[in-house]
């Protein structure tokens, strides 16, 4: 069984190595940076930076569904009839929109460590616990993202007239299906620009996770800068890579936007 999983992992890493935009067969560094500090392999820092690029992108992509789902439920809680639910959702957004992201990250990183340590020592396990930086970053950034996302979705919910819900019920759809078939498609259309901004903020916030030791773009370029004493070059590359990510996501968002708006009347 473990052979099966390792075969899958190998196939995935081979695939990622193949499509790698920096050090793959058609990679930027492979073709244009041979013999420089950015060469791939042991000669340069190209492959380390390529790993960092992948880690940054995958952290942002892994955080997105967590934050979106949590934010959706918090937006629902905020417009609920129940006062206690509204109050607790408001407390959540006030706290996580007010705290600096870096502080949230530290609180989650060290807090989780202490929590798990205490829990395990209560169960009789003695030993040092190390929380995965990727996991802690995913939770901290997801929580912050969900707090902002709930506000965006709440204002999008308010833009949908009551008649849409009533029409759904009149067709005999129950609550969940009305939400899924009638409200959600319109909600996405209204909320998309706001969500695009939040995605950009999330992409930039992933740089913070390098502080607790995640091997993302900034950490890898930082190590390279310290070793080679070419700080300006490597941090410029980090900036350029983030710009590339921002550019790619703006392309993706305009594609999604034109897709969700295809039902609208052309004027």
């Amino acid at each position: 069984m473990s052979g099966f999983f390792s075969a899958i992992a190998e196939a995935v890493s081979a695939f990622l190595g193949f499509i790698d935009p920096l050090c793959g067969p058609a990679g930027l560094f492979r073709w244009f940076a041979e013999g420089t500090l950015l060469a791939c392999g042991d000669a340069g820092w190209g492959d380390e930076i390529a790993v960092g690029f992948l880690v940054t992108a995958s952290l942002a992509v892994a955080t997105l569904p967590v934050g979106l789902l949590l934010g959706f439920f918090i937006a629902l809680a905020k417009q609920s009839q129940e006062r206690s639910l509204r109050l607790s959702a408001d407390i959540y957004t006030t706290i996580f929109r007010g705290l600096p992201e870096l502080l949230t990250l530290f609180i989650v990183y060290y807090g989780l460590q202490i929590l798990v340590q205490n829990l395990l020592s209560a169960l009789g396990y003695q030993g040092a616990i190390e929380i995965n930086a990727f996991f802690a970053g995913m939770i901290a950034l997801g929580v912050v993202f969900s707090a902002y996302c709930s506000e965006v979705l709440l204002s999008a919910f308010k833009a949908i007239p009551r008649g849409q819900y009533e029409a759904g019920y009149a067709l005999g759809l129950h609550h969940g299906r009305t939400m899924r078939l009638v409200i959600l498609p319109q909600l996405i259309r209204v909320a998309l620009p706001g969500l695009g901004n939040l995605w950009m903020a999330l992409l930039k916030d992933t740089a913070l996770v390098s502080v607790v030791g995640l091997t993302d773009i900034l950490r890898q370029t930082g190590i390279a800068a310290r070793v080679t004493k070419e700080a300006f070059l490597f941090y410029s590359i980090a900036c350029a890579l983030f710009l590339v990510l921002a550019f790619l996501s703006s392309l993706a968002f305009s594609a999604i936007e034109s897709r969700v708006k295809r039902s609208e009347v052309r004027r």
Partner: protein
Amino acid sequence: MSVVTSLIPPQAPPPAPAQPYTLSRFFGSVALGIWLALAVGIFLTVVDGWDPDKFAKYGPSYLSGLGVTLLLVSLSVTLGALVSLPIAFARMSKNKVLSWLAYGYVYFFRGTPLLTQLFLVYYGLGSFSAELKALGLWGFFRDAWNCALLTFTLNTAAYQAEILRGAIESVPRGQHEGAASLGLPKRVTFFKVILPQALIVALRPYGNEIILMIKGSAIVAIVTVFDLMGETRRAFSRTFDYQTYLWAALLYLMIVEIIRNLWAWFEARLTRHLKR
């Protein structure tokens, strides 16, 4: 023939239907319970781990860190507002080169993380120490605080330029035309007609920008500036006491909430002529 001889005596109203115990009420109670348990738990750990020595030792440094944070943010927001003016006008200018330059500036500073920009200035410019020494600027760039101030000013200038441009362009064309038909010169039109209306639109984004800067300023702790976050990290590394982060969280939440409420009051006051 029948005659009504007595009225029906008044009846008590039917009892109110019992409020059903819904799922959302259950979840609301659970969520509130979790918050309450967290608050009580944090309070208990603070009381349990209360150490007057630590408080006396690190309390003043927290306050000085808070001062550094507030000074850094207020200086950089003010300087950034000044720098943002030429950028916003370059962005709106008809000159293609100018507008593209300004767009590139804004795209760079909005598209990359503040932390990367800070590293680029603080560590990256260190690569050019010889040239900077020749120019006599090395004294400035050697200090982390100066580098942080410079980076934050440039960063917030990009955001503020976008806010200003959006606000100015949101003023309808008719306002320009109305002023022109009254014979007002361009300069007077801008300062007396366009800018007052634009600034009201820009008020809320400016408030958000200040709050974002306060939150973003926490990262200067990584380049050894002892702001609130830096003092917190120092206290944590000496005591390994988790409470240090909770105190910092409390202070940050307090500043952000105070500014948010002040700004809301400010906005309500400035837009009271628009209320109907």
